């Protein structure tokens, strides 16, 4: 602004002088054109430059921030801009970072922020402002400077203004699902999935016989793996994915060949900046032998953020997984949680594989997918993250305290489904609880109260649906809550199944068809405190590989005979006998399939859940009967000779989808998404 006034005045005077002479009219036009062109960048620094492009769905504003005047640098970013009075505004100076929700002209600070500090003159820094779901996140110079959570405004334009610098290459990058899988089943070129950053990398046969060098994919179900070898220059590192990937897990099957460290990498920026799960061997002679570490490499310096005992054994296959989300870093080995840390570095970046072995480390079955978490220890305020639905809430002394006869605070996204939600909670004589699947004045609550309380749930755990202010108790059971003691509560929402846990023990569950998705929250009655809340999404259910071997016999004709002897099914001795799976399936499970051409013929299908071939009374059986010319299915739920329930189901199209499920203590049957049976058994 200080430059622009005099600059404009000088040129205006010159234009007037030029226009006094007719010969110079053309000159004046061009001069004016040049002046306008020159003024555009200066003007853009004061008034926001609004990008023409608008993206549906999540996006990031990204660009290179050039710092010309470090002391006076001021960046203002606008997202979901509807008009000047309705927008999110992110402001950054050396001493301040601020996120504001501006509604009807009133600005309210939201989220957690920290200042960048002094900038270097003539520095070029990567800037990204992510708008993803309910979250806004500012990443500058590979540091997360702001994270806010709000959904008041959605959609709209994106703009920016910079003084003391410039953002010359601002662009909108769409964000979306993070997903990549690689089984390394290829021999040809053309692959651009992986980039070898250091060391040597290549796809090699897993065979150890004389056919190893032939690389014959058809001779094995899992012929190849990706092998990395460190060199004298240092570890081997290969990366995949894109610079904007965030909130994901990278899992890989890993087989170390020697005692050197192996690992997987997240938020990779360059060879000197990334996060990694680094795992050394029990057999190593190095000082850090036999440890699993979360390390951050920043500016080429490696720092251990967390460490646990227990190393790998060379030659053994493991599944190593690194998860990153909202500053939380976790490591799992063979699906067991082993290590966690916090790190606000980078905030986004590629994924990778890592080894310090020069003999080679095998990597296979790599899967990278979204991983979302919510963690809060209430050590610092986060305005806007929690919305008060009822009662009075106060964040104090590292806890969130509720007062009043009934209090509910909600957080998260209404789109969230299939999660585990937990918190530490305590009360003297009131009730403590968690809320889940909250959508528009409809939510499900797990609540518990000490025996001496005068509340209806005294000495009990209850799962309650609260809809339009009306309560319905769906399940209840005995539970011991000690007055004044901290208890860990957990509420799992899994496709209709709601399960409540107290101090790690499952105390009750219920299945409800409308408990599918929604926000999470905290519940209190008569005063309670909460701490250390933690949400994690449940992993997608694994699908047993039984259907493919049967349905694709035409395409994989050469495999049919092989499959019939080694597949998961046992062929019955007689024609009408049941096909039994070879495996035992523990815990919750679903049999899902389609019935095609319901009207075309009469027939019967019997599905046995948790049964045994030699015990007809074991488990639960679903019998579905079709009649020729009718679109009505007769469904019967049985246990041995006992009929549990019967129903007739009219299907709308010629094919219908059937799900027969064990969900906690419930057996649920749905046809075309409609619940036919839900019984506790």
């Amino acid at each position, binding site marked *: 602004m200080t430059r622009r006034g005099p600059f404009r005045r000088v040129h205006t005077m010159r234009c007037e002088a030029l226009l006094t002479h007719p010969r*110079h009219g*053309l*000159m004046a036009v*061009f*001069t004016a*054109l*040049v002046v306008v*062109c020159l003024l555009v960048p200066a003007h853009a620094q004061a008034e926001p430059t609004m990008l023409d492009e608008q993206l549906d*769905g999540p996006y990031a504003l*990204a660009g290179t921030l050039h710092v010309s005047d470090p002391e006076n640098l001021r960046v203002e970013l606008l997202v979901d801009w509807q008009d000047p009075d309705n927008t999110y505004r992110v402001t950054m100076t050396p001493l301040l970072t601020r996120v504001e929700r501006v509604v009807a002209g009133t600005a309210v600070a939201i989220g957690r922020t920290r200042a960048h500090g002094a900038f270097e003159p003539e520095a070029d820094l990567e800037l990204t402002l992510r708008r993803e779901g309910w979250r806004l996140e500012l990443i500058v110079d590979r540091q997360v400077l702001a994270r806010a959570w709000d959904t008041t405004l959605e959609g709209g334009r994106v703009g920016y203004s910079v003084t003391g610098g410039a953002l010359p290459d601002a*662009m909108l*990058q*769409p*964000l*979306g*699902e993070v*997903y*990549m*899988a*690689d*089984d*390394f*089943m*290829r*021999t*040809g*070129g*053309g*692959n*651009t*999935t992986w980039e070898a950053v250091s060391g040597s990398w290549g796809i090699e046969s897993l065979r150890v016989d004389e056919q190893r060098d032939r690389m*014959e*994919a*058809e001779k094995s179900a899992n012929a190849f793996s990706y092998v990395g070898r460190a060199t004298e220059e240092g570890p081997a590192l290969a990366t995949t994915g*894109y*610079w*904007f990937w965030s909130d994901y897990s990278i899992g890989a099957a890993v087989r170390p060949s020697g005692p050197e460290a192996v690992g997987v990498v997240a938020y990779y920026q360059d060879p000197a900046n990334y996060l990694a799960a680094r795992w050394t061997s029990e057999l190593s002679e190095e000082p850090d032998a036999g440890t699993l570490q979360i390390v951050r490499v920043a500016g080429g310096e490696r720092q251990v953020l967390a460490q646990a005992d227990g190393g790998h054994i060379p030659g053994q296959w493991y599944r190593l997984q690194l998860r990153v989300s909202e500053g939380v870093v976790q490591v799992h080995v063979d699906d067991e949680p082993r290590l966690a840390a916090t790190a606000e570095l980078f905030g986004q970046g590629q994924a990778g594989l890592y080894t310090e072995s020069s003999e080679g480390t095998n990597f296979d079955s*790599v899967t990278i997918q979204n991983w979302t978490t919510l963690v809060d220890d209430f050590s610092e305020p986060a305005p806007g993250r929690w919305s008060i639905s009822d009662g009075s809430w106060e964040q104090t002394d590292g806890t969130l305290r509720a007062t009043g006869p009934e209090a509910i605070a909600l957080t998260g996204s209404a789109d969230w489904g299939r999660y585990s939600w937990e918190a530490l909670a305590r009360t003297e004589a009131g009730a403590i609880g968690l809320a889940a699947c909250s959508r528009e004045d409809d939510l499900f609550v797990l609540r518990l109260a000490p025996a001496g309380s005068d509340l209806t749930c005294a000495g009990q755990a209850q799962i309650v649906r609260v809809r339009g202010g009306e309560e319905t108790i769906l399940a209840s059971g005995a539970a011991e809550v000690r007055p004044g003691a901290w208890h860990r509560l957990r509420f799992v929402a899994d496709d209709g199944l709601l399960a409540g846990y107290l101090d790690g023990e499952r105390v009750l569950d219920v299945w409800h068809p409308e408990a599918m998705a929604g926000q999470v929250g905290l519940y209190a009655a008569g005063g309670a405190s909460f701490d250390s809340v933690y949400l994690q999404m449940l992993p997608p259910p694994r699908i047993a590989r039984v259907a493919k071997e049967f349905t694709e016999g*035409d*395409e*994989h*004709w*050469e495999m049919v005979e092989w499959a019939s002897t080694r597949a998961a099914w046992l062929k019955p001795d007689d024609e009408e006998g049941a096909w039994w799976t070879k495996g035992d399936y523990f815990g919750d499970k679903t049999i899902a399939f389609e019935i095609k051409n319901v009207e075309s013929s009469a027939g019967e299908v019997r599905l046995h859940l948790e049964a045994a071939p030699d015990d007809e009374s074991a488990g639960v059986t679903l019998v579905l009967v079709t009649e020729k010319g009718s679109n009505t299915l007769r469904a019967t739920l049985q246990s041995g000779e006992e009929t549990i329930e019967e129903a007739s189901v009219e299907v709308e199209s010629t094919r219908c989808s059937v799900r027969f499920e064990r969900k906690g203590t419930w057996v649920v049957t749905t046809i075309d998404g409609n619940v036919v049976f839900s019984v506790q058994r």
Partner: protein
Amino acid sequence: MRRFIVPTIVVLAILMVIGYAWAASIKIVVEGEDYYSIKPSMAKAPSQVASGKAYIHIPLRRPHATTETGPADDGNARFRVRIPSAGVYQLWARAHWYDACGNSFFVVVDDKPATIVGEDGTYQKWHWVKGPRLQLTAGEHIIRFQNREDGAKLDQFMLTNNARYVPVRAEKHTPEYIIKPPKNQ
């Protein structure tokens, strides 16, 4: 002295206009069904989830190939694309692979040698696959997607001069850059 002012200003103005145009990010998004010509076994198919409700593909052969021994034919789709300004363009393909033996196409640009797009391990899912970087002149170019493996599907492809941009979902169609045969116009 004044006689140099006008030319200088004109040159400056032209340079600035060219500069802005050069700096502009270009995205050319072509639907699979925008082909100028198609040769079997490449075929068009309808879809509820593909952009434009259609895609092109090399249909699964029965039995499906279990080795990478080479394609059974040279089925292909030819696209005529108008490049607005010369530069280096990144090619992206929105693809759906059947399995490890159905996860690539050959791509031939003008009369240049064929390159492979695909060979990644994401199966049974529409996703964007990075292709070659192409030095293209302004004007018309022919891009050919050709059979390499059966079970490979193509929904869209994109050419962009923005090296940092990565497509993640179906992109907005840009018919202004696509030349179609008269009967399809």
